[in-house]
């Protein structure tokens, strides 16, 4: 099971950063029905760490804290977040001043890409409704991760993994992969953040340079439960959203938001294969990094990104010497080819694309301008710079960078490339349009949640990733436990649930389908309450 959560950047003409919590709240409330409301925050545990402890509090960015206004009327956390559960099974809400779209749980990468891109459409619907309500002024939403002034916001991936692999083993095996995957998964950025800004100083990013990743400047430690400040490369939050005896949710927070579909395909596909490799007992040898936090920045900043040959993106190994990021990725690729090829057609497509892109990154990176965001954006910037006679330190280039991520198809620069046929596609426009209102076809729990929203949104309450409440006409509430549906046939679920006409019939139908699933098979996860702050 896999998913992507994206916090979008939000620009509302005439409004400042101090207004963005209210603006993001307004925005998500404008998404049209059917939507279910009533997310149950008591069941989230963002302070629980996979290493076996719970922290007292999560770190807060001191610069960002200045935007909190004590004079504002107090709203409850639930009101401010304004969760909406959509007919696709996705979640839309305000996360700390960012409209966030969390895809429904998916079981294939292509379905995930369609759902992720449907999030762009959902956001644009909200932006247009907000503009209409304002009666003038621009509202723009950006699928990116930086404001060039020291603030970063996340695009997170979730991978359900086998709990049997000890966390420390998982961490050390996956870390070199995560540090280096930006060579194909980076979204590109004009400017480098000053470390004072990352530490809460709020200074402008240094312009005149281009780097691979939007997020790399913001990581200060290897592993931690924090996400807002002192950000780690590997997040240790322990929220599996399913049976915790069997699974952990590996929550990757070091990725960029991608618009190029092949970049998302690779980002998710290679990470998934790497995790599967580790589950088979494989361990990387001789590629542990001496300083992963420095390495993730050094790779991103390397000015030799367009050079050919192996002498770029070099990182220091713990065992001595250096290795290039392309070769380090090949270490994982080779093992995946040997152990995982043939598992599924999608696995083989990931392996082929991974090999193909690594080879081109080494031999002719410019050829990837139709494939990877950082190359596509650099190509656009060069085109514009030459046409306008600008130098790399012209501040206009940062605005071009920003507008690459604008999700308005009429103005966004990535969308311009797509409309001109200059980027490769994985999913069709029709699939993306369908994913706005339909759950991913292979995901039982997304189908159950999504069909419930389509039919009985107003009867749903206490929604979490693993269950929701459904009230029938007599006021009787039943808890629908989604972990009990994970092994059911998605086709049968869709067929049977699409035909029901009442909440009682919905519950009865699920009971019939689940009759062979016992409580022994599925341990419920939503047991404890926590005090408040929330997780994506």
């Amino acid at each position, binding site marked *: 099971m896999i998913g992507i959560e994206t916090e979008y950047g939000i620009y509302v003409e005439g409004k400042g950063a101090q207004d963005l919590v209210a603006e993001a709240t307004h925005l998500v409330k404008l998404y049209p029905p059917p939507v279910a409301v009533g997310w149950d925050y008591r069941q989230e545990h963002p302070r629980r760490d996979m290493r076996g402890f719970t922290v007292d509090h999560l770190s807060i960015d001191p610069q960002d804290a200045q935007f909190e206004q004590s004079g504002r009327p107090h709203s409850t956390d639930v009101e401010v977040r304004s969760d909406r559960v959509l007919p696709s099974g996705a979640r839309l809400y305000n996360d700390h001043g960012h409209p966030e779209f969390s895809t429904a749980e998916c079981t294939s990468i292509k379905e995930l890409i369609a759902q992720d891109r449907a999030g762009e459409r959902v956001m644009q619907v909200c932006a247009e409704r907000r503009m209409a309500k304002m009666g003038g002024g621009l509202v723009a939403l950006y699928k990116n991760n930086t404001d060039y002034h020291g603030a970063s916001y996340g695009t997170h991936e979730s991978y359900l993994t086998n709990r049997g692999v000890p966390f420390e083993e998982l961490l050390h095996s996956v870390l070199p992969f995560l540090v280096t995957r930006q060579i194909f998964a980076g979204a590109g950025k004009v400017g480098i953040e000053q470390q004072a800004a990352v530490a809460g100083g709020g200074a402008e990013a240094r312009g005149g340079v281009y780097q691979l990743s939007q997020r790399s400047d913001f990581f200060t430690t290897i592993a931690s439960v924090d996400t*807002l400040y002192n950000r780690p490369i590997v997040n240790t939050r322990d929220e599996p959203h399913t049976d915790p005896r069997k699974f952990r949710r590996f929550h990757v927070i070091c990725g960029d938001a991608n618009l190029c579909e*092949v970049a998302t395909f690779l980002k998710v596909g290679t990470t998934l294969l790497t995790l599967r490799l580790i589950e088979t007992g494989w361990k990387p040898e001789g590629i542990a990094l001496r300083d992963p936090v420095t390495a993730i920045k050094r790779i991103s900043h390397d000015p030799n990104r367009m050079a050919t040959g192996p002498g770029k993106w*070099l990182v220091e190994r713990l065992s001595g010497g250096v290795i290039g990021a392309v070769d380090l990725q090949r270490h994982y690729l080779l093992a995946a080819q040997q152990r995982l090829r043939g598992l599924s057609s999608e696995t083989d497509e990931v392996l082929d694309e991974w090999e193909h892109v690594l080879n081109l990154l080494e031999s002719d990176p410019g050829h990837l301008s*139709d494939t990877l965001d950082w190359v596509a954006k650099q190509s656009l910037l060069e085109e514009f710079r030459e046409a306008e006679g600008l130098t790399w330190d012209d501040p206009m280039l940062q605005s071009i960078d920003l*507008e690459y991520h604008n999700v308005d198809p009429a*103005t966004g620069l990535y969308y311009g490339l797509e409309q001109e046929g200059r980027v*490769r596609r994985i999913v069709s426009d029709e699939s993306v349009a369908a994913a706005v209102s339909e759950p991913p076809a292979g995901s039982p729990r997304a189908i159950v949640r999504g069909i419930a929203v389509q039919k009985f949104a107003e009867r749903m309450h206490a929604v979490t990733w693993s269950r929701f409440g459904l009230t029938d006409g007599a006021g009787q509430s039943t808890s629908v436990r989604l972990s009990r549906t994970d092994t059911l046939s998605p086709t049968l679920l869709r067929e049977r649930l699409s035909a029901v006409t009442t909440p009682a019939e919905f519950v009865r139908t699920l009971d019939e389908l689940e009759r062979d699933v016992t409580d022994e098979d599925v341990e419920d996860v939503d047991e404890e309450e926590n005090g408040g702050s929330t997780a994506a």
Partner: protein
Amino acid sequence: MEPIRFDDRLTRPMPTADPLRKQSDGDGPSKPDVKRPESRNILERMKRVDPNQAKRYRQRSGE
């Protein structure tokens, strides 16, 4: 940094034939099949970008 150790190289670049750029048998990555509307020139679109948009763009710190 120490000099590059080329023995770290695990595979060599693939030959120029690229199966992924061929007409695919399945539904995997493929060349786009999108018509190019003449009215949507990307350079013109870039010229319409507000030069001060990034300067004005301030966000809350997120996760």
